[in-house]
């Protein structure tokens, strides 16, 4: 294996890992506030589809990107609202959101473009790919610092550990959780934007392909810390890159198996992690 091959493999790992990384940062924020976020998949889908759609009609990929993030945030807000104001079971609400978003995007393709499966090519921001990769890693470090060191970070953690104690200290856990869920949606939406407009220039059905759930695994395996989740997300990126590199090199191995590699790795990682890592104590529990 030559050096250039290794370098291109690593570069691909970063690119493939970044959307997972962005969504996992959102997952960390919402879970540390106490909201289980299995809706990352739907939020990524909504962000990717909205970005492509808006970019197509405005012919401006930057407006598309902002729109994708905003729609992701809106979906995150919906999850947060359902979880805090209506006290809906967070897993059920998350599943509902995932179904609505994937179904809504598939429906939107036919409704808007009159074709199933994929949008036409749209204006993209491929030139911003690497700045986004680097920005995502910097963001992970910033969030790590903010959660540990700032008053807002402390309050976020307090809400995820014991919202009653946070309430007694004058903090509104419902507001904190709603904000955290909304920002989480924006970050997952940005992950979707990265896929649709950063790497490619379209949206296609199944494009997210479980990356939201992989991001959730990264949250858990990264022990609910931004840098931990980012590291695990990049490892998943590396597995995806390896999968690309290995395709066709081993004749007897079906490519389907190689494509399943990152998911199998996530499953094994979660099996190893289960029980050993402690989630935030009040995660998934409605307040009050």
């Amino acid at each position: 294996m030559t050096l250039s091959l290794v370098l291109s493999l690593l570069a691909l790992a970063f690119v493939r890992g970044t959307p997972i990384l962005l969504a996992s940062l959102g997952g960390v924020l919402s879970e540390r506030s106490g909201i289980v976020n299995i809706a990352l998949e739907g939020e990524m889908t909504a962000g990717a589809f909205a970005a492509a759609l808006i970019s197509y009609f405005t012919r401006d990929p930057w407006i598309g990107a902002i729109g994708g993030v905003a729609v992701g945030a809106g979906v995150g807000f919906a999850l947060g609202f359902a979880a805090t104001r209506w006290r809906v079971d967070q897993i059920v609400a998350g599943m509902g959101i995932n179904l609505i978003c994937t179904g809504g995007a598939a429906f939107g393709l036919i409704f808007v473009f009159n074709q199933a499966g994929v949008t036409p090519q749209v204006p993209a921001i491929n030139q911003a790919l690497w700045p986004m990769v680097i920005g995502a890693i910097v963001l992970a470090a910033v969030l790590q610092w903010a959660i540990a060191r700032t008053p807002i970070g402390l309050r976020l953690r307090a809400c995820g550990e014991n919202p009653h104690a946070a309430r007694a200290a004058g903090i509104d856990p419902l507001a904190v959780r709603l904000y955290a869920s909304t920002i989480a949606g924006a970050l997952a939406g940005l992950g979707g934007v990265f896929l649709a407009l950063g790497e490619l220039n379209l949206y296609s059905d199944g494009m997210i392909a479980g990356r939201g759930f992989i991001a959730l695994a990264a949250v858990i395996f990264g022990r609910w810390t931004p840098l931990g989740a980012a590291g695990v997300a990049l490892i998943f990126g590396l597995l995806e890159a390896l999968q690309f590199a290995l395709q066709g090199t081993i004749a007897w191995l079906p490519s389907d198996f190689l494509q399943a590699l990152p998911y199998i790795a996530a499953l094994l990682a979660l099996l190893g992690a289960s029980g050993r890592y402690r989630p935030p104590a009040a995660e998934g529990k409605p307040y009050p």
Partner: protein
Amino acid sequence: MLDDVDLTCEAGEIHALVGENGAGKSTLAAIAAGELATDAGEIERSGRIGLVHQHFALIERLRVWENVVLGHEPQRGGTIDRDAARAFVREIGERYGLEVDPDALVESLPVGIRQRVELLRELARDPSILILDEPTAALSPGEVLRLFGTIALLTQRGVGVLVITHKLDEVFAHAGRVTVLRRGRIVEERPIAATTRERVARAMIGGEIPSIPAHEPTHGAIAVRVTDLAVTGAIENLSLQIAAGEILGIAGVEGNGQTALADALAGLTAFRGSVERPSSIGVIPQDRLLEAVIPSWSLLENAMLGRERAASAKPSWRIDRAAARTQCTAIVERFDVRATSIDAPLSTLSGGNQQKLVVGRALIDNPAFVIAYNPTRGIDIGATATVHTELLAARNRGAAILLVSFELDELFALSDRILVIARGALRGEFADRRFDREAIGRLMVSA
């Protein structure tokens, strides 16, 4: 819940609020602190009222200083000034005798120290009145003294302290004034100097103090035989025997192996050595909410928990609901559990009434062996008398009883024999009800 209650707490006084479980003490505290709303009436506060709950509301996985400054963090350039926060914790700690390592994780701290953190958190907000709800329920005798030392320092600085308690010893040792609450009404309010313990006790329960039956000696065969019991990290080579019709008291400071001993005898933890005990066993667990009940379930369901087949006369694959109701009603009547209905969620009952159900569940089938771990922790005089009477009745019926308690008075009142445990080993034995309080106290802290 509360009806026409007038209560004042003045600056610099220690005011005791006493009453049976369900009398409305905690409700009154929550209203005073602004956590609950009233239907009528008003609260006048000169300054902040701080409330320390009976079940601590700390965030376990945060550090001590994080718990203390949460919501009013000292800041420097947008970040928390951690040095200032640590210094703040140390400063209040030194001022009031509440020394704690500011960087310790709360979950790593024992109960007594957690209470200091809880106090620190309230004191950090500079209250003019501090309400302590059952502050000594989980403390050792030394910690209780220390707590009242802190309270004295607070009152010297002009803070009014309202202590909610069941323990009349503490009321008469430390308080300046006492208010008795019964069924949501104030039935007595006097300076301590102008009342007596008997008078306060009568006011609390609204009648005469129930007496415990006399302690007649019994002579039974050995029912429980423990040989060379060892539980990793807790106890080593511990041997003891309990006769039928005997209450064996275990005296010791919390965390010296009592939990491992009780769990091993109940079959709840792995151990080495041999344990011979009867198969019919009743357990009154240490932590009611954690180990004994499911609060959202009804009295009926909780009464059947763990003994789903006991109600049925003949073996069956289903629960005999009718028989279960009869049994639960029997427990409720015999053990004086005060509830609106056996179908009400257990969480609607006061702690003392929940505990009476737990005790009733453990004793109703007349087990040959009973493990009672702090059976009256945090419950009132009336409920305590019921529990003590029933434990003695079980003993007189021939049950062997292991009684673990952190209260020497309880051990002295009930035990036939007392073993002292310290650092996972037995340090002394006191038989024939000849108990020497001082000698036992010394052995409890021996190394």
